[in-house]
C-alpha cells in the first residue's frame, strides 16, 4: 500500500523523475478502425509527454490469442502500462486524452483537480 502511494507521488512529479523507460502494451484485435485510432492517439500522447522514454508494444490478439490471458484482456483496445509499476489498464480508443493521462498517471490528479 505504502509503495503504491509512494509511486503515485512520484508519478505526480514525473518531470523530476529519473529518466526511466515506460513500457506500454497496446492490445488490438486485427486492424480495426478502433485499433488504428487507439494507436495513433497513444503515439500522440507519448510523443508529447514521454518523448524518448517510452516503448510501445502492439499485440494483435487475432494473431496471438494466447496472449490475452496474461494481462486479462477483455476489452479491445486495451492499453497496459507495464512499467513503471503498478500495472494500469486503459480501455477504449484513447480519444479522451485527459482520461488517458489520468489513467497513465501522467496528470496530477483525477478530474476534480483543475490542473
Amino acid at each position, binding site marked *: 500500500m505504502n509503495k503504491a502511494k509512494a509511486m503515485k507521488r512520484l508519478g505526480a512529479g514525473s518531470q523530476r523523475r529519473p529518466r526511466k523507460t515506460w513500457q506500454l502494451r497496446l*492490445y488490438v*484485435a486485427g486492424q*480495426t478502425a*478502433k485499433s488504428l*485510432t*487507439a494507436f495513433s*492517439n497513444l503515439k500522440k500522447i507519448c510523443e508529447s509527454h514521454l518523448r524518448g522514454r517510452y516503448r510501445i508494444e502492439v499485440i494483435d*490478439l*487475432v494473431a496471438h*490469442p*494466447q496472449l*490475452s*490471458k496474461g494481462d*486479462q*484482456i*477483455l*476489452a*479491445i*483496445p*486495451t492499453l497496459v502500462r507495464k512499467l513503471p509499476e503498478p*500495472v*494500469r*489498464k*486503459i*480501455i*477504449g*480508443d*484513447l*480519444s*479522451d486524452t485527459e*482520461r*488517458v493521462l*489520468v*489513467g497513465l498517471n501522467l496528470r496530477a490528479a483525477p478530474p476534480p483537480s483543475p490542473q
Partner: protein
Amino acid sequence: MKNSGPQAIHPTSRLPKCPTGIQGLDEITDGGLPRGRPTLVCGGAGCGKTLFAAEFIVRGATQFGEAGVFMCFEETDAELKANVASLGFDLAGLVRRKKILLEHVYIERSEIHETGEYDLEGLFVRLNHAIDSIGAKRVVLDTLEALFAGLPNEAILRAELRRLFRWLKKKGVTAVITAERGREHLTRHGLEEYVSDCVILLDHRVNDQIATRHLRVVKYRGALHSTNEFPFLIGEEGISLLPITSLGLNHKVSSQRISTGIPRLDAMLGGRGFFRGSSILLTGTPGTGKTITASCFAQAAARRGERVLFFSFEESPNQIIRNMHSIGLRLEPFVKSGLLRFHAARPSLYGLEMHLATMFKEIAVFQPQVVILDPITSLMAAGTDFETKGMVTRLVDYLKGGQVTSLFTSLTHGGHALQQSEIAMSSLMDSWLLLQDLEGNGERNRVLYVIKARGMAHSNQVREFLISNQGIELVDAYIGPSGVLTGASRAAQAAREKAEMLANQQEAARRKRELERKRTALEQQIAGLRSEYENEEIELRRLDKQVSAQTLMLSAEQTELGRLRQADVTVTTGKQGKPKPKK
C-alpha cells in the same frame, strides 16, 4: 433414474438436445439442453449455479466425450477446482487431459480506465482460442454479470453481450450462462433478454427451518418440457433432481406373493401375504406394534434369502435389534450375513430431498427386495405434508419400478383424525394395515385391521394382536352382543363361555345318568318278570307232568282194574303199562 447416455436424445424431437448428465434434468427436459444454443441458469446466491455449470462441463467430458471450456469470472481456477473436488469431480485431472479448459477472467474496475470507444473483442478472442484449443463443444460462462461490475459502460456491454450470444450460437457450442437472480427480472441485469432459448431457474428456499433447493425450467423454446418446480439437491455426486412426474404409471407387476412373517396375517390377506413389489402402509398409534410388525416382515424376508433395507428414523439399529430380541425376533444373524441392512438417520438431519437422495443411493447400492421405512411420519418433520407426499410418491414409484416391496410405518395420533391424515398417503399404497389400541376394562389391547389390500380378497375381521416372548400372535377378537372384546374381557368372556359349556355338559351327563338308571330299573323289572315267567313255566311243566303221570297211573289202575275184572280187552292206552307187567 440412471444417467442416460448420449443415445438418450429423443429420436423424434426436432430440436437436437445436449444431455447434461445431471440426474433427472435430462428427463424433465426430454433429453437435455438445446444443443448449440446458450442456456441461462439463474438463481440467488448459493443455489448451485456454478455447480450446475461445472457438472454440465464435467459430465460432458466424462460421459459424453465432449470437451468443455469453463470461463469463470468470479472464482480462480484453483478455487473452482477445489470447490468441485468436494463433489467428486476431478477437474484438475480433466484439465490435464485437455478435456476441460478453465479460463479465469479477472476484472477489476479500479484498475480500468475508460477512454473512448471499445468493444469486448478480447473476450471473444480468448473464448474462441479456448474453444478451439481443445475442440470444446460445451461452454460455461460463470458469471457473465461480473462484467457489469467491471466495465463502466453498460451500453457497450449490452451490445457486446448480444453479439456474444449470437457468436456462441454461430460457433455451435452448447453454452450455459449463469446469472444472479434479480428482484424484478429473472436476472439482475436482464440477461434473459439475450438468451431466449432456454432459461433454468434455481431456487433455495427455507421452509420451517429446512432448506430445499428447487429447479424450474422457465422456458425452453421449441421443446416440450416439464414446467413444474422440482426439488433437487447437491449430494456427493453432484446435483440430483428427482422428478415426481417423470415416471408414468407403468410399473411391471408381479403376482408373486410374499409372507408377512405372521401366519395369521397372511391368512387375512387372502391366505398368502402381500404381493411382491407392492407398497404397504402400516399405520398405528404409539405403541401398537408397528416396528414389531415391520421387523417380523423383515425377518421373514431375510429368511427367504431376500435382501432387506431397513430405514429407521427413530431408533438406532442396535436398539431395534435388542428390542426385537426380547420378543423372539432375531435380526442380528441376518445383519451379520448381510441380508438385512439398517440405515438410521435423524429426520431433522437434513432436508427431505437429501433423505430421499440418500435413500435412493442406499437402495441403488444394496439392491434390496424389501425396503422398510420406519416411520415415514418422522420425515414429515423435515418437510411439509405436500413435500412428504411428493417424496413418498417418488420413493414408491422408484421402488415399484424396481419390484421392491416396501413397507412404510406411519405414526398416527389418537382419535378419528388418524385415518384422515393418512388419506393422502394411503392412496399411494397397495395395502394398508391399521394397528389400534382398544381401551376398556382398565387395559389397552392391540387390534389389527386390514383396511385395504389391492388385488386380494382380504379379511374384514378385526384381530387381536398379541405380543409375546415368541413374537406376534393374532387371535380372534370376541365379537358378540356386547361388541368386540379383547384382552382380559375377551378372556373373561371365553371363561364365561367355558363355564356355561361345562354346566351344559354336566347337565347332559346328569340326564344321561338318570336315563340310564331308569333303564337299569326297567331292565331289572324285566328280569324279575322274566324269572317270574320262567317260574310259572316251570310250574306249568310240572303240572303238566303231574297230570300225565296221574293219567298214566289212572289208566294203569284202570287196566289193572279191568284185568282184575278179567276184561279181555287189550290195553292200548299206554306202553307204560307194559314194561311194568313185564317186570
